[in-house]
């Protein structure tokens, strides 16, 4: 079937490309056509069909020559947070309007070096700050899933909302995402796809617009666990341009997918059983636990006592780092500069530029970060949060030292909610979306969201697995077992 090549997984497309059954040009055209018909999702915000066609032709030549890495010829979407040479890279912010980098992020360069094809840039929350893709200067991305026959537009989650919507709607075979507090895993769960945040330091952060440097990691958003393994391997690796990128070998993650988890210890943390947790989330979690047990894993109850302090610690550390990272947007070197009135000096230029260029949520976080770092409050807020972060990491170290191999939790506290539904809630209510994911960033661990079921309204729900540092292979294998057992095959009905 030539008409639905865009629905293939990376693994399927790779095998067909190598067998000569399809060309990258055909895959790319199928995706470009799907993108053109999906304006209502507002997932792709800068299309790059010319680059895509040229890269596809090069990939086809490479495949014909017998030199084809797994990602060769695979059409991808790239989150707008990644700097892509000569292509708008705005981090979904008005302050970077018109910015076209003169350089390419290390992660995207590695994908192009492996022969992947860039279809365009994907919508997201502004500077990756948000959990619903509602803070974007491009407007909301829309979830391809709906509640039964109800046409209320739902959020694809955030911040990688465009990436999630694009993959779930088969506009691309896979997409890049980034995750600072849950920005890959929460949107993956909201859209019924797979998303992994690797160990901090696995992927180079060079050329990715910085939000909170000690928490940010890139990762793949894909249609299957196998695809996540294939694409993650291409994205990882040491980069001299990022001093925090780990100089350790990248294993063959796909080879780790044996499907055998007999004897592995899976921890179920009691602190993740939140008061008021919806029954369907509770059931999903219990079902997932049973699936891993049936596959031969040993289930153990564990405690991560500082879990409840992860969100407040995150909402000190992330804004503090953001206020520092976003100081560079001053109207001097790139992006927007405000029109100045007669007599305005450089301070007015900074203040007006940043007031016009940053959206409300970004301004709020920059100012909270400024406050917690300001003289007199640095110890009370910032240093205290960093100490609590040490304790959160120690919680995980203790359970891993006790023999636990992976931890199973829900990915999100609910299914996707309606766009605008959280409009009148206070900011903390929106932050609660990250309650199950943010601990993983604070501890620098790998975490993966896998679609595992549907809620009573027909919306996808995801489970999260958390692994030991640098053990993405083992984590992916456990996720693979969960994926096979859950047998999640549902797709959103096409309405767009």
């Amino acid at each position, binding site marked *: 079937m030539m008409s639905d090549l865009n629905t293939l997984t990376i693994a399927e497309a790779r095998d067909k490309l190598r067998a000569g059954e399809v060309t990258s040009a055909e895959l790319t055209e199928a995706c470009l056509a799907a993108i053109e018909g999906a304006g209502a999702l507002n997932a792709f915000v800068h299309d790059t069909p010319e680059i895509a066609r040229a890269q596809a032709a090069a990939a086809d030549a490479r495949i014909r020559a017998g030199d084809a890495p797994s990602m060769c010829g695979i059409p991808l979407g790239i989150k707008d947070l990644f700097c892509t040479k000569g292509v708008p890279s705005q981090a979904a912010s008005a302050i970077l309007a018109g910015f076209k980098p003169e350089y390419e992020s290390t992660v995207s360069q590695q994908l192009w070096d492996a022969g992947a094809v860039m279809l365009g840039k994907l919508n997201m929350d502004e500077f990756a700050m948000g959990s619903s893709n509602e803070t974007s200067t491009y407007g909301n991305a829309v979830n391809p899933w709906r509640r039964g026959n109800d046409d209320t537009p739902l959020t694809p989650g955030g911040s990688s909302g465009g990436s999630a919507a694009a993959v779930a709607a088969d506009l691309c075979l896979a997409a890049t995402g980034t995750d600072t507090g849950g920005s890959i895993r929460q949107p993956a769960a909201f859209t019924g796809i797979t998303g992994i945040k690797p160990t901090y330091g696995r992927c180079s952060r060079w050329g990715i617009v910085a939000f909170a440097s000690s928490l940010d990691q890139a990762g793949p958003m894909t249609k299957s666990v196998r695809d996540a393994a294939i694409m993650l391997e291409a994205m990882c690796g040491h980069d001299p341009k990022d001093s925090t990128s780990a100089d350790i070998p990248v294993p063959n993650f796909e080879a780790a997918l044996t499907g055998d988890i007999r004897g592995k210890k899976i921890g179920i943390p009691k602190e993740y059983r939140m008061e008021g947790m919806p029954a369907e989330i509770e059931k999903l979690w219990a079902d997932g636990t049973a699936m891993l047990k049936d596959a031969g894993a040993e289930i153990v109850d564990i405690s991560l006592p*500082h879990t409840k302090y992860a969100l407040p*610690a995150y909402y000190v550390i992330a804004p503090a780092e953001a206020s520092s990272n976003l100081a560079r947007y001053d109207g001097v070197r790139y992006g927007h500069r405000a029109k100045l009135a007669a007599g305005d000096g*450089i301070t007015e230029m900074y*203040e007006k530029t940043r007031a016009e260029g940053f959206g409300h949520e970004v301004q709020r976080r920059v*100012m909270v970060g400024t406050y917690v770092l*300001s003289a007199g409050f640095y110890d009370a807020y910032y240093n205290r949060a960093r100490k609590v972060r*040490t304790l959160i990491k120690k919680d995980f170290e203790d359970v891993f030292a006790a023999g636990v191999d992976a931890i199973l939790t829900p990915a999100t506290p609910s299914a996707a909610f309606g766009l605008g539904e959280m409009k009148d809630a206070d900011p903390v209510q929106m932050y609660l979306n990250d309650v199950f994911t943010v601990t993983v960033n604070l501890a620098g661990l790998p975490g993966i969201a896998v679609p595992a079921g549907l809620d009573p309204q027909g919306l996808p729900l995801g489970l999260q697995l958390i692994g030991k540092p640098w053990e993405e292979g083992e984590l992916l294998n456990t996720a693979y077992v969960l994926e096979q057992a859950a047998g999640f095959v549902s797709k959103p009905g096409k309405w767009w």
Partner: protein
Amino acid sequence: MSIDTETAARVAKLARIKVEDSALPALAEEFNTILGFIEELNEVDVEGVEPMTSVTPMRLKRRADVVTEGDQQDKILANAPDAREGFFAVPKVVE
């Protein structure tokens, strides 16, 4: 800890973000909601705990202190809102 409009104005100034006076009360209220949430951290006993500096224990690499990339003034200035004669241009800074 409660933030008043004066503190909100000071924080906005430090962050170099222009906030109209009329928007300050709402901003102060938002800060208070967020800080109220953050204050849960005071329940934790952090006595003797080291603040985290690096989430993955690693020694940062060093390199020779030499120019690695240079001579690309055009590229550096290419995205500037105002560049003249090989420089970034800004409003007059010195009286």
